[in-house]
């Protein structure tokens, strides 16, 4: 059984990857936003000097890990559109009448999304090195795992809503409505250390804020901090939960 899941997931992963590489320019399009932050916004942080949450001269080390979480959120948030395409052209229905594992249909997609995301994160990190990024190598590798999980979570949410609405007009505003508050409440752009208490409390119910805390610790080399453990636990739980939710919706599509 699990052999079949593995086999089918591989087939679906390759199929989806082929689709992505057919128009490779889109791999770079979603990197535009974080690169703009890096080039046009980060210099402002350096100019702030020492503020709570940003040690003097360390702005880049605090900012880049958050920026990569931002990429993980926005780079995968809109993958649901491709699923609507496949539903509309009857491709998903054709898959569903074959004996292919239903989990593999979605797993092949989210793993593709996570793979493309990691490529993007590595490219952004490389661009950040000339800006003085100091990063612990092991911490960076563990962070990549964390970004992949954030990407799988966001992609699953996107697929879940795509399966709920099945039309683009409803999907776009829904995803925008989610991504904006979720990224603001993660302390990505500016640290939450600056925030009033109520805003800090609000950020605690945002699972992605834990990922930002965790990756900042990892970049600094604090592998065993509470933040790192919390970050992984919260994101793994979220990823599993939303994946199962969208899988339920896929199964219900045929019901």
């Amino acid at each position, binding site marked *: 059984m699990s052999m079949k899941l593995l086999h*089918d997931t591989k*087939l679906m992963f390759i*199929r989806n990857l*082929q*689709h992505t590489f*057919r128009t490779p320019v889109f791999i770079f399009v979603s990197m535009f936003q974080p690169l703009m932050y890096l080039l046009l916004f980060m210099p402002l942080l350096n100019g702030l000097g020492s503020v709570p949450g940003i040690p003097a001269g360390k702005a880049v080390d605090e900012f880049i890990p958050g920026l990569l979480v931002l990429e993980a959120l926005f780079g995968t948030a809109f993958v649901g559109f491709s699923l609507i395409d*496949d539903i*509309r*052209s*009857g*491709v998903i*229905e*054709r*898959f*569903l*009448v*074959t*004996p*292919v594992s239903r989990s593999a249909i979605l797993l092949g997609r989210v793993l593709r999304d996570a793979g493309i995301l990691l490529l993007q994160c590595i490219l952004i990190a490389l661009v950040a090195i000339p800006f003085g990024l100091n990063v612990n190598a092991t911490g960076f590798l563990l962070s990549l795992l964390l970004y992949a999980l954030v990407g799988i979570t966001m992609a699953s949410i996107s697929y879940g809503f795509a399966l709920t609405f099945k039309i683009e007009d409803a999907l776009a505003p829904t995803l925008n409505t989610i991504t904006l508050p979720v990224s603001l409440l993660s302390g990505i752009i500016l640290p939450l250390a600056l925030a009033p208490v109520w805003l800090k409390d609000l950020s605690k119910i945002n699972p992605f804020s834990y990922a930002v805390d965790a990756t900042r610790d990892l970049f600094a080399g604090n592998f065993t901090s509470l933040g790192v453990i919390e970050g992984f636990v919260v994101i793994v739980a979220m990823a599993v939960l939303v994946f199962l939710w969208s899988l339920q919706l896929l199964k219900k599509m*045929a*019901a």
Partner: protein
Amino acid sequence: MSADLVIETKGLRKTFISKERGGKKNGKKEVEAVKSIDLTVRKGEIFGFLGPNGAGKSTTQKMLSTLLCPTSGEAKVLGYDLSKKQGQIRQNVGCVSQAGGADLGSTGTENLVLQAQLYGADSATAKKDAAEFAERFQMTSFIARPAQTYSGGQKRRLDIALGMIHHPQLLLLDEPTTGLDPQSRAYLWGEIKKLKAGGITIFLTTQYMDEADKLCDTIAIIDNGKIIVTGTPEELKSSVGGDTIVFTFPSEEIAHKAETLLNERVKVEKIQVYSNVVHLTVKNGERLMPDLLRSLDSKSLKAQGVTLSRPSLDDVFLKYTGRSLREDIIK
């Protein structure tokens, strides 16, 4: 269940909950898309499921392909219980939906190879099968191009090849020629007959009378989620009655004289005069016609024109539903 029954259903039923808008109450309403369907499809036949849009054809087909769960009722497909053995049914049934479902960004070959692999073929077998099917469905000239560049007929061929790639025992075809030009339709009809000759059982839904008439061994007419009548095309047509001969005469007076004569000469099922035109319904119209014309001539009741029409499935639909199928399609 008998071994030569490929599909057997009893009281198959499907309801959907639909949201209603407008009026004072916004509410949910249960819509019965398929109301208690009993079907038997025999091995090796082309079974036609004929009815207008929205009759419940696609819903029934989706239940048979395991895509939709029946609300109630029982069904066996290839001897497997529909509610329990979905895996076996999926492995042994081929399914071509109305949308087709080819991946338009991929080439025909990529589509076929993946499809074969989804049914469990290894990579080498999948490639071999894909090449073989490209040959068999005369697709070699375009199979290496992305499917989005295909004409309607070419895409339909790919769709059917996708449904056949795993050598199923039963093929479900949902409106295979809807939206195709006449040449492509004729070509596909030929292909479907060839498939049948290869021994596969085909369950074909269609809204076209001529298609059902030309292809099917057995036809079930469905309307409003219910099967109205089942039989061979010949049985259904003869249930409507005999052939209709329409004579046109120079005047109404002559037409009435002819009516009297015709009534004496043959065993009339029905005869009606509309102005100078006589509609005569008889058995074996084709054989009687020359004789009738001679008799009319001998009494100087010269017809200006004569047409013979055999009952069509459209007449069958009209008889059992009180509506013309064409009206429904136009609507």
